[in-house]
């Protein structure tokens, strides 16, 4: 019998494999297929959107900092003082930067699907005896498998 399960990259996945091995499954009966994740290509200059995964944060952080500095400065003369003006600058600047980023990312890369947290990142295929299936299946589910399938042997 074969069991096929999908996982995220996380420590639970390694523990799942360790527990499956403790059930008497040998290393040679386990096949791990780590997937390459979409959108991690190697392009030196277009790093915002593809490579470092922080495109939704760069614009906000930059504009937020700049507006916060201005808010603190003009808090010097405005009635509400530097703290509220600074915070208003930070929130306003961050939102504008974030929205601009979102707009440009959508605009420029509408064809590229963004990475979804629910996506499987890793597949395990385990070959075992029919009487082991239930135990192995439970172990996989117990360690955060995203999905498990059972396949009869030809």
């Amino acid at each position: 019998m074969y069991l096929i399960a999908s996982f995220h990259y996380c420590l639970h996945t390694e523990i799942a494999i360790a527990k499956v091995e403790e059930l008497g499954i040998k290393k040679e009966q386990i096949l791990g297929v780590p997937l390459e994740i979409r959108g991690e290509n190697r392009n030196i200059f277009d790093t915002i959107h593809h490579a470092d995964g922080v495109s939704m944060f760069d614009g906000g952080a930059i504009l937020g900092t700049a507006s916060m500095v201005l808010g603190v400065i003009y808090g010097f003369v405005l009635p509400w003082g530097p703290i509220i003006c600074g915070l208003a600058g930070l929130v306003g600047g961050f939102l504008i930067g974030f929205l601009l980023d979102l707009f440009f990312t959508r605009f420029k890369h509408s064809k590229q699907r963004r990475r979804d947290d629910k996506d499987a990142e890793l597949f395990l295929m385990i070959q075992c005896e029919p009487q082991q299936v239930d135990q192995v299946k439970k172990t996989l589910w117990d360690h955060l498998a995203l999905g498990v399938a059972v396949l009869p042997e030809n």
Partner: protein
Amino acid sequence: MQQSQASVIRRPKSAISTYSVAIFHLRNPFVTVWWSLAYPGFGHLRLGSTIKGVFFFVGELLINLHAKLNLAIIYSFTGNFAMAKQVLRLDLLLLYCGILTFAVWDSYRVALETNKFSVLADHENGPIDPMIMGSAGLNSLDKRNPWLAVAWSILIPGAGQLYCLALVEAFFMMIGGISIMYFSHFLPAVHYTFLGQFAQAKAVVDWQWLLNIPSFYCFSIYDAYVKAVELNKLFDQEQAQFMRNNYQSTTFKMPI
């Protein structure tokens, strides 16, 4: 299982020690330039050149403090140019231009360089060390929640860095952040602001020091977020290597 092949790897992706994890990953050089402009040294901290970054940061802080530059900035932006000229002290002022432009230029240069190393490291795909233990402490790669890192850095500048295994940087951010908070009387001002006593909040702050707060706070938050994301990606890469090296036996009986 996996033996250390340090001597064989020419372009390593990362290095883990008991007090930090250094990673070569792609970074936008212009965002790096921005952080160097916001505060000389932050561009370098972002690139992982921690000591260099701290060096620039302390240099700019001392020169700015002596020259009363922040105060002059506030007066200039509010139209009070006569006062701006009056508060500036000229002993070290011109040196500031040098420090600023050097930090910006150097961080841009290093950003391009680390991007090249990052491409080469990804191509070489050498083994990544997932954990280390030593007398000074222990570090291991695991998944981090980037928004949790953000939340911690909002509460305490540097705490997000601590969460993301950057002990040296976190130490600096905490000492620096607490010093700036203390000398600017930022927290009493927050207190008065929340009580609605705006005039008192304005009166209590030290404006020269207060202008350091925005860049410092925002960088601490931004950097913690990026560090968490990159640690997660390094973890993924290491686990994928582990799978390929250990669970792709040629004797595996394929179902078809």
